[in-house]
């Protein structure tokens, strides 16, 4: 088989080089396949991997040589064939093979077209990278209560963790919704890492960060001379994410003209760079995320309905932290350990008072806010336990104004310890339905004014019920006398 008169590589060196020798010495398993998908050459590494001799493999359909999990469904050569351009970039997939020794081996398959001098397709090349040595991640312990870098054991999150591995294995578009700081980026990355595209690139684009003209070029690329200043070709994020995942965060901020282009890509997997007359086929999985209400935007005509349906194939909604029950305590313990280790502090926990204040906070910024609070605490704390004085001041005193607090007009919990400094945060109802909607649609000064009015009214009513006795009114409101006095001064009620 290994004839000395085999094919030659000409024109590269002074003398022709035997191609067979060159291919055999490449340590990566490689096969050359005819246009009819029959094996015409296996290098030595491929023979070793498939446990099959070159003589046996020759002229067999490649599916009987590689016996890959993708051979019957989702063959990468089909993707290569579908490309309108002969010069399509190689397609890569993770899969497994069952070789002639009956061993199941995880591999990364990369396929591409081979073209003749006239551009016509003459066959394909296929490489199979043995992943057995590169999969220590399988033995990596996951978080005890979570998935990837995500934590949580609330029922909502457990449902997400349960669905995630199965969804990751498909190529369906994923839409991640949730408030800011709930972990949309982490989830997108977890989906990518658990998918068979994990070895491919994970490219993130913030659709709200760039003006429309720049965003189009950033996403789809441009040809040299497409516009003033386009001095060279730019591939664009779609092409950079080829064989991987493109994460479009803040997709609700995507301008309408670009929504059309994204829609076109989702339909036929072809992008059109700025200034180019030819489409480029890219193999990219789309994960989109937004904190906006896309259905509401569709009703207002700011988001295309057809794009919503194409993105919304699989939808993950990440609940806000205030609806995740005991996850707050889990995150507090986790981040305390992380930051104490990072900053070299010997902090072993929170005092009961500090823990109560932290558990009662509403966390409008969700996990990100909690993480920042714990980082602050660990920075400030010089003791073995984080106490109330180590908490950010706004948590204790400005909490009500900043986070909206009991927007339903209810006073703080009657169980609040009288005179404690945690009175203001206690007034915040963590899981009150309706607070969320109010938070979401709140707009700056209007909300402050509304709450100020409500709080002023609360104080007035409490004072009236207590017949002007400030101590009794403060007790009813669950505040310290000093807090009531300060607020009365603030609202001009002490005149």
């Amino acid at each position, binding site marked *: 088989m290994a004839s000395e008169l085999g094919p030659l590589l000409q024109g590269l060196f002074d003398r022709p080089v035997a191609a067979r020798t060159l291919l055999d010495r490449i340590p990566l398993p490689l096969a050359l396949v005819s246009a009819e998908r029959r094996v015409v050459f296996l290098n*030595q590494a491929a*023979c*070793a991997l498939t*446990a*099959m*001799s070159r*003589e*046996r493999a020759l002229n*067999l*359909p490649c*599916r*009987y040589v*590689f*016996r*890959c*999990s993708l*051979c*019957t*469904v989702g063959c990468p050569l089909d993707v290569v064939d579908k490309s309108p351009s002969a010069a399509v970039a190689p397609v890569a997939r993770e899969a497994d*093979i*069952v*070789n*002639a*020794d*009956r*061993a*199941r081996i995880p591999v990364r398959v990369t396929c591409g077209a081979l073209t003749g001098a006239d551009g016509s397709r003459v066959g394909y090349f296929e490489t199979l990278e043995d992943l057995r040595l590169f999969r220590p991640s399988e033995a990596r312990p996951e978080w005890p209560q979570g998935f990837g870098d995500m934590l949580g054991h609330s029922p909502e999150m457990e449902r997400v963790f349960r669905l995630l591995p199965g969804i990751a294995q498909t190529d369906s578009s994923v839409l991640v919704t949730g408030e800011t700081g709930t972990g949309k980026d982490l989830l997108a990355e977890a989906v990518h890492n658990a998918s068979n595209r994990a070895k491919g690139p994970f490219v993130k684009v913030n659709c709200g960060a760039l003006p429309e003209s720049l965003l189009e070029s950033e996403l789809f690329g441009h040809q040299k001379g497409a516009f003033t200043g386009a001095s060279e070709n730019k591939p664009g994020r779609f092409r950079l994410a080829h064989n991987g995942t493109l994460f479009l965060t803040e997709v609700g901020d995507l301008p309408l003209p670009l929504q059309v282009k994204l829609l076109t890509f989702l339909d036929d997997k072809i992008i059109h760079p700025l200034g180019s007359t030819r489409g480029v086929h890219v193999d990219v999985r789309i994960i989109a995320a937004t904190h906006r209400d896309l259905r509401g935007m569709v009703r207002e005509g700011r988001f295309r309905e057809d794009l919503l349906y194409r993105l919304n194939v699989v939808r993950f909604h990440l609940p806000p932290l205030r609806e995740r029950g005991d996850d707050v305590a889990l995150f507090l313990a986790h981040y305390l350990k992380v930051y104490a280790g990072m900053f070299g502090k010997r902090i072993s926990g929170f005092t009961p008072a500090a823990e109560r204040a932290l558990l009662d906070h509403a966390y409008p910024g969700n996990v990100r806010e909690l993480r920042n609070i714990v980082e602050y605490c660990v920075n400030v704390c010089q003791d073995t336990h984080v106490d109330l004085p180590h908490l950010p001041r706004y948590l204790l005193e400005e909490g009500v104004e900043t986070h909206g607090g009991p927007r339903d007009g209810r006073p703080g919990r009657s169980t609040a310890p009288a005179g404690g400094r945690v009175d203001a945060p206690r007034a915040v109802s963590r899981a009150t339905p309706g607070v969320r909607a109010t938070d979401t649609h709140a707009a700056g000064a209007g909300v402050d004014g509304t709450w100020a009015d409500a709080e002023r009214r609360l104080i007035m009513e409490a004072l009236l019920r207590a017949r002007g006795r400030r101590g009794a009114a403060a007790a009813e409101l669950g505040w310290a006398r000093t807090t009531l006095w300060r607020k009365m001064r603030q609202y001009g009620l002490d005149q």
Partner: protein
Amino acid sequence: MSDATPRNRATKEPPVRGNVLVALHRDAVAPRFDRATEAWLGRIDGEGGLARSRTMVLANASAEELCRIILTENVSTVVCCGIEQEFHDYLTWKRITVLDGVVGGRDAIIGALLAGTLKADAVLGGV
């Protein structure tokens, strides 16, 4: 890697008799046992004739499901291409003959079965 298959294959196998299952994908043997989408079930009588045959379409490609069918149908010989050692050992332990590494079309395989010439690693026509 000097030999085509390092495994120690039987050099002379008796003609196949009894219930036979061929793991199929479309009109040919499936490249992998666990990826078979159809199964041809036949009974070869003592004279080497085909007593009865039928093709089952599987709801899902699954090695476990095929094993279940093999046991419930009292199959004595399985014909397939790639198969994991785990399933090969299981079927062998169940006293089922496994002819693996077979490449060929459905008709060619049935013809070889009836002729009594089918062996493991056989490469037949029809693909």
